[in-house]
């Protein structure tokens, strides 16, 4: 049974491989994004020593690693799910002997692994060559970052699944999907590190799940969080992973019920 789920990862990976040409442009554009952000922050820093606890060098690394992490965790599960719902093909998938949401997560992981190898790693190499990125020297930072990156993927995909499943209950969730995209990019700390927001806002963002996607892994990789602190921020991610399971399970059951009612 478990083997079947692994096949979903493998198949998606191979499908993505068929379209790999797209990813060459992706590398270019992600690098450009990092470049523009790098120069913007450079202009902001001027002669300033440190902003929101980030030194100039740390900010460069943070920007590079955040965008590259996005290359890995980003996927369109929300769109895939709401398309399945709107064209009705979800009904067939519900009666098949597997868990629909789990399958979607597996497909997302297949895509993520592909993006990791074809987009994130080559992109990171280019970013290191072009910009003064400082790689961490401690093994714990690397190990912590990779584990946290996996949780970034899980949490971001969970949010996508929730947004996608909402198509069952909202007539048109196009707007919700767009809003989600904007909110995740802004509130996860991709565009602005959370510690630079005004106090009241960063206080609010610290109790929301989004920081677990970009800000926390980025903080570990830049060395702002070290040693025991890594376990703490990892704990935050695990916490949100578990909490987000609740609405997914609930939505999934409610969706199945609703499907039967509509199907008559």
């Amino acid at each position, binding site marked *: 049974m478990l083997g079947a789920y692994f096949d979903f990862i493998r198949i998606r990976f191979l499908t993505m491989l068929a379209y790999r040409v797209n990813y060459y442009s992706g590398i270019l554009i992600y690098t450009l994004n990092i470049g523009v952000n790098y120069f913007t922050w450079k202009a902001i820093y001027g002669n300033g020593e440190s902003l929101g606890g980030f030194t100039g060098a740390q900010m460069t690394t943070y920007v590079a690693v955040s965008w590259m992490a996005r290359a890995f965790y980003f996927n369109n599960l929300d769109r895939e799910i709401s398309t399945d719902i709107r064209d009705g093909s979800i009904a067939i998938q519900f009666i098949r002997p597997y868990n629909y949401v789990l399958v979607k997560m597996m497909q997302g992981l297949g895509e993520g692994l592909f993006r990791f190898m074809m987009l994130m790693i080559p992109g990171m190499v280019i970013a290191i060559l072009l910009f003064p990125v400082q790689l961490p020297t401690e093994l714990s930072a690397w190990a912590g970052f990779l584990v946290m990156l996996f949780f970034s993927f899980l949490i971001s995909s969970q949010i996508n699944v929730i947004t996608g499943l909402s198509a069952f209950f909202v007539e048109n969730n196009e707007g919700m999907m767009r809003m989600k995209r*904007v909110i995740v990019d802004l509130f996860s700390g991709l565009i*602005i590190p959370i510690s630079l927001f005004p106090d009241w806002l960063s206080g609010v963002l610290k109790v929301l799940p989004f920081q677990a996607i970009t800000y926390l892994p980025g903080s570990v990789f830049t060395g702002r969080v070290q040693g025991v602190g890594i376990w703490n921020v990892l704990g935050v991610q695990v916490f949100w992973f578990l909490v987000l399971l609740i609405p997914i399970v609930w939505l999934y059951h409610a969706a199945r019920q609703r499907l039967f009612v509509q199907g008559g």
Partner: protein
Amino acid sequence: MKTRLTYRADFWVEVISDLLFQATNFIFILVIFMHTDSLGGWNQNEVVFVYGFFMVPYGVFSCFVNMWGFSERYIVKGEMDRILTRPAHNLFQIFLENVDPPALFGSIIGLIIMAISGANLGLPFEWWTIPALILLTLSAVAIYTGIYTTLTSLSFYSDAPTGILPLMYNIQSYGRYPVTIYNRAIQVLLTWVIPFAFVGIYPAALFLERDEMRGMALLTPVVGAVFLCLGLVSWNYGVKRYKGAGS
């Protein structure tokens, strides 16, 4: 257009999500200026004003030209064949089918932002302000249309769904920062290759009386015309090569 207005709730959701997207960029500017006084020699009101201008042509563009999902909708599903059987120009039909009125709210907000920050800066209101605003807005819309038409016409050549469009949406907003802060390569890229600097900072500089960019501002209509032509040519060429969706 009427079908869109039928769903009132959708309309407002779309307005709000558009504005939220603009708000993220706006928040970015506000947060930046909490930590610095000037960005490459431009102060907060100036950067905000540039952003206000940037929103105006962008709103007009997204209202009348919406190429999002063209490949899936028209090529994969074969709707392009239906378009081609009609007499009106195919690109024009596609634009009309996808008109998106909620996007115009962005332009209105942009004008309001320009008015407020312009008043803060004490900018003079000259006889040429309104005509220049209209001309530069249309030029910027032409640039957007040119770039996105060119990119969309790529889908006539390749079967794979191109991921370029969504990524381009990220890049376009960089044209509204003072381009002088970037290094030479990015400046050249944003000015001459994908000229997003001409939809934000250069034309806005004219109103801000930034003499160093006046030449560039006056060049905006030329760049608009060039890129619009480029878009139309590559589109027509793509349509000629198009062979239909199989069945």
